[in-house]
């Protein structure tokens, strides 16, 4: 019985890894400039091609975008799984702590709060590092608030509700800023909220990657904690878990994961909510030592598919990634809800 289960996991993981590799390759292949398959291969292997521009496109644009997609997909999915488990709520996601709201506040203040002169000289001087830093500062402030709350509040549900309320309050503040800002600023901000994988440069990848890798390592090591949290915090405490420390560890890794993604790519929705459910359905287990890895791979896969769709293969246009992930993720969540009839049976 047990052996059978483990071989099933083995096959599933092998299949997922193969699919991620396959879609990674497709992600490199599709784009507004058509590069023949053979050349994609040879450029990857030797970094040389008859057309120098193709090498450039692959190395300067598509490869960074591929890595960004892999990192953000797995980061958001794993962060979502952690939040669903700790809050015991199937609709929780990486942003329930108010991370994206905080980031958007930071960006909104940067883009719309200052006079346009400062912003445009600032943005041209620092590239989009300015936006990245603003998003970082914004989400860090919100997280700091949530941490203080979580040290004082006993009931985890209270934290969930406070997180949502805080997020809404910030959104209201951001909409006031939007109301009073001029068109060009508004557009800069709106474009940021739509998310983008392609905007991450090679040098930014050097900051994004370690942030997410550290977050993922913390998550992957906390499988045992998440397992015992399935029964709720009271039970977990009675079985010897240091609940406040566990909250701290999980919030830290979630903020590293979701915070990094939001800072560099904008808020990307629904991957974090949908993927953990897909992982539970595929692996049919509640064991986080399996689920975390499954969620990580499925998250990367879903983001790759999203990115390929957003490239609109065969056309010159691209779609905003946030819209694509929402359109991919929402039907999955709806289907899961209808299939299970009630939300509480999802987790």
């Amino acid at each position, binding site marked *: 019985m047990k052996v059978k289960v483990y071989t099933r996991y083995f096959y599933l993981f092998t299949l997922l890894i193969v699919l991620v590799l396959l879609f990674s390759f497709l992600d490199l292949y599709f784009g507004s400039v058509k590069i023949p398959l053979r050349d994609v291969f040879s450029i990857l292997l030797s970094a040389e091609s008859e057309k120098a521009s193709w090498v450039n496109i692959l190395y300067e644009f598509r490869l960074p975008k591929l890595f960004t997609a892999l990192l953000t997909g797995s980061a958001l999915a794993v962060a979502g799984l952690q939040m669903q488990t700790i809050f015991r709520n199937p609709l929780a996601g990486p942003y329930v702590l108010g991370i994206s709201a905080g980031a958007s506040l930071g960006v909104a203040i940067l883009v719309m709060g200052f006079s346009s002169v400062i912003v445009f000289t600032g943005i041209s001087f620092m590239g989009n590092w300015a936006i990245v830093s603003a998003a970082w500062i914004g989400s860090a402030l919100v997280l700091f608030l949530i941490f203080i709350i979580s040290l004082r509040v006993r009931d985890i549900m209270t934290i969930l509700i406070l997180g949502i309320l805080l997020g809404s309050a910030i959104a209201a503040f951001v909409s006031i800023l939007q109301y009073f800002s001029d068109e060009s600023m508004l557009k800069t901000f709106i474009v940021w909220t739509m998310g983008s994988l392609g905007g991450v440069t090679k040098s930014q990848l050097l900051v994004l990657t370690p942030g997410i890798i550290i977050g993922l390592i913390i998550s992957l090591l906390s499988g045992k904690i998440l397992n*015992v949290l*399935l029964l709720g915090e009271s039970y977990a405490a009675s079985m010897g878990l240091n609940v406040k420390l566990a909250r701290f560890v999980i919030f830290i890794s979630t903020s590293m994961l979701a915070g990094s993604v939001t800072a560099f790519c904008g808020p990307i929705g629904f991957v974090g909510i949908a993927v953990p459910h897909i992982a539970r359905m595929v692996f049919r287990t*509640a064991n986080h030592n399996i689920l975390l890895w499954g969620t990580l791979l499925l998250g990367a896969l879903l983001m790759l598919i999203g990115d390929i769709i957003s490239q609109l293969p065969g056309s010159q246009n691209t779609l905003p990634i946030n819209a694509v992930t929402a359109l991919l993720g929402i039907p999955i969540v709806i289907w899961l809800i209808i299939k299970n009839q009630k939300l509480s049976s999802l987790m």
Partner: protein
Amino acid sequence: MNKDNKYIISLDNVSIGYNKAKPVLSNINQKAGKGELIAVVGSNGTGKSTLLRSIAKLQDTLSGNILLKGKKLDLWTRTELAQNISFVSTELTNVNNLKVIDLISLGRFSYTNWQGKLKENDKNVINKSIKKTGLENYKNRFFNNLSDGEKQRVMIARSLSQDTDLIILDEPTAFLDLPNKYNIVNLLFELTRTENKTIIFSIHDLNIAIKEVDKIWLINNNKIYEGSPEDLILNNTFSNIFANRNLSFNVKTGEFKSPVNADKDICIRGRGISYEWTKKAMERLRFTTECNKNTKIIVEVIDMDKKTEWHISNKENKYVCKSIYELSLILREIIKS
């Protein structure tokens, strides 16, 4: 060491609650010995849960000391506590995709390494817990597909796999039907005898508690009365407490009764089981069955070969009934007129 050591848990002038100025309960000085089954009873809001959660150190006390095996709770490490006290709550947790055996294995949390890898000894304890709770055939089923009674049994198995001397259960039978209530309490009794566990649990059903436990902690008016069920009956603790609640406590049977209307008396004649149940039925219908000189209504229970008949007579009339239900309908008519 001191003599408190023979107690698993002893409370030393403890007050509990959420607000120092208004403690839920104070001056608690209860003790629990090894292998004892203790029921905490009392009305809603008297502090049963608070007491149990305080003993399990899931919440802090306001003042006083709780000693586990003679040592203050605060001096034990988190892991040591988890290996000495386990807790089962009234809430029936909902977790999808979680197999019974995996849930029970969670009890080994404080014994395993950071990965939660189960060693040979862990597996032995888990298997023993499954056996003790009679869950062998449920091992590989999903927890969510179980009935409420089965779920609670699994949660108890999980607390067993935690391998603690003390198990605390907060209303483990609250959501269960009557047979399951008895089942669970009986299981707890067995565990105190075969495993020498000390078990403290709260329960609303006093009738079950009276029949099964070694000791009752009865909470009333911010005081805890303690004793074996029989002691509490004999020293009239129950009767006194329930006297002013429109409920009477029958000292003879140890059961609660609704108040009776003394001027509705009935004479029952007969014998055997039919007689006993007729008597119970009359009490249910708020009649007394004293049968004195002034009693006007007489019911004769007549057992025949295959059936029973009830003959009612009062001054004016005579009736024959074929069932207690029919009897009750006619009695209502008589009373009305």
